[in-house]
């Protein structure tokens, strides 16, 4: 597929829009359907599209397997970290009211924080699994 001009140009044009859409889904998850999980999958889909068209090696130079593995773990740390922060501030674990004077603002920040954790983990996990499958050589080759 790597010689097809239309596919290559199409993927190049589409990828930024997919990534922007993913971020929109993440940050607009409070107001419309979506959130960290869906956004992470959409971002991973953008990486998968680029890898299918331009080859795995080219994409892995930009988004290294090490980086996505670190992402997968970092997201869980962010999520759990939000809980630890609220505990340090004197509230329950994951009690977002602690994060601001107005409880509703605190809830807002807390939700954004944990959704960011979900986004980072899901993105890291999806891309890691994709790399592992796509990077293996079949027995027939």
């Amino acid at each position, binding site marked *: 597929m790597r010689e097809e001009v239309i596919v290559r140009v199409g993927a190049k044009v589409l990828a930024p829009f997919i990534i922007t859409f993913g971020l929109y*889904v993440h940050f607009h*998850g*409070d*107001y*419309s*359907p*979506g*959130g960290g*999980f*869906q956004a992470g*999958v*959409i971002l*991973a*889909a953008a990486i*998968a599209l680029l890898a*299918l068209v331009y080859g795995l090696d080219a994409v892995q130079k930009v988004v290294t397997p090490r980086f996505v*593995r670190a992402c*997968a*773990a970092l*997201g*869980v740390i962010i*999520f*759990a970290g939000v*809980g630890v922060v609220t505990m340090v501030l004197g509230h329950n674990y*994951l009690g*977002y009211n602690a994060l601001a004077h107005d*409880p*509703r*603002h605190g*809830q*807002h920040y*807390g*939700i954004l924080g*944990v*959704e960011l*954790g*979900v986004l980072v*983990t*899901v993105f*890291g*996990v*999806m891309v*890691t*699994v*994709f790399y*592992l*499958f*796509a990077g*293996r*050589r*079949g*027995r*027939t080759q």
Partner: protein
Amino acid sequence: MLLTLLAAAGLALLRVRNLFAVVMLAGIYSLLSAGLFTVMDAVDVAFTEAAVGAGISTVLFLGALALCGHHESKPGHTPLLPLIVVLVTGGLLVWGTMDMPGFGDPANPVHHHVADHYIEESYPEIGIPNVVTSVLASYRGYDTMGETTVVFAAAVGVMILLAGRLGRRPQPEGKGDGG
């Protein structure tokens, strides 16, 4: 209409022996499910189904196909016993639903445990309009953290299974244990 298409896609999935067609049909099945969820006003679920089921899963299946070839071998046994097991289990499940309250009845217990509170108090307490997000990330924050951890654990499992030989030299063909 969507349900009919869904059933057709499911039956076709069973009949086809070419795995490439199976993967494509599974993607279509997911997309139809997403449409069904949208019709039932479960937009967040539909979104996830479309992105995960029809999007990423299809790519992962294609990656797996590249490893194992396009044709499914014929099953070595008759499907009679599995068919009986499936029919009995399905019958029991349908029988079990007889005791359930009517579908969509607003007086159902499930709508009156915590759901009232979530729907009425979500905006004053959390301040965001999307109730799904406020339940997911705030009221049920522990569950979501568990889910995130499960996703991470799944990735670790896949890594252990598939990337175990990263550091070693590839075995010569035919000598490996097929792992």
